[in-house]
């Protein structure tokens, strides 16, 4: 009898599980937003390294809210590679809602300004894509977590970095709630030193900004 109960308890336990320190298996029913993200990153990853940050990370991991935009950092690439990526997105039915001209899109990305991509003739949901061309953005690639889903892998920046950015930098009600969600969900699996390291990176970036 007791054995039966513990079996049920095991089956009902959260199946968000770390396969190793950089890989998380997530056995959820994928929603429309998850599918939208997976379709987009399947194209993106052919051309460039990417990492998803901010709100969608919490949503992928169960938060009960939607978002109209998904934030993605991509590593800087040459104009030629970016041209291929841009064409690849266009060929698969996406458009940049800021501007059509690829040269202009590339110029803005190089200046650190994000651009938004959506399915052609739609506005939301969209992907806010930025080059990881400053130290703060580059730090998102330091600990990339691969989330394994039923339809493929999704790269997100570490849970600890998400928590630190939401608690110590963004700080809106929504962001603080996202941080609480992740803290409760992962509990003692979180590495406090990594949260502290991200917090220090944020403080240093802020002090550099203030000086300039």
């Amino acid at each position: 009898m007791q054995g039966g109960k513990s079996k049920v308890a095991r089956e009902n336990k959260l199946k968000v599980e770390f396969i190793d320190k950089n890989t998380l298996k997530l056995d959820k029913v994928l929603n429309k937003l998850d599918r939208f993200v997976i379709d987009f990153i399947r194209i993106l990853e052919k051309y460039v390294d990417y990492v998803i940050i901010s709100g969608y990370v919490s949503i992928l991991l169960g938060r009960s809210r939607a978002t109209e935009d998904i934030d993605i950092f991509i590593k800087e690439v040459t104009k030629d590679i970016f041209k291929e990526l841009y064409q690849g997105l266009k060929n698969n039915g996406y458009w940049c809602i800021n501007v059509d001209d690829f040269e202009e899109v590339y110029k803005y990305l190089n200046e650190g300004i994000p651009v938004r991509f959506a399915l052609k003739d739609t506005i939301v949901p969209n992907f806010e894509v930025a080059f990881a061309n400053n130290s703060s953005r580059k730090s998102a690639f330091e600990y990339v977590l691969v989330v394994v889903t039923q339809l493929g892998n999704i790269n997100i920046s570490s849970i600890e970095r998400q928590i630190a950015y939401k608690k110590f930098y963004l700080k809106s009600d929504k962001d603080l709630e996202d941080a609480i969600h992740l803290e409760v969900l992962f509990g003692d699996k979180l590495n406090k030193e990594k949260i502290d390291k991200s917090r220090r990176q944020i403080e240093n970036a802020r002090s550099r900004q203030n000086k300039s």
Partner: protein
Amino acid sequence: MLDPGKTNREGRINFVIYWANYIKNNSDEKWSKQQDFLISSQIENAQNIELTPKQYLKIKGEWCNRGQI
């Protein structure tokens, strides 16, 4: 037990904690079906909003070089 909280803010945070614990203690299928229902319907509603890129980006305070559209 979900505590409604003394303020709206407190109530929201209590729900976030309640939901995260719900996820931890229920099967992925059970919680994610509910999340699917919520998110997929919100996305469908958002897609029905008729805004031009220029109007949308203006709301966001961002740049748009698409002329009048």
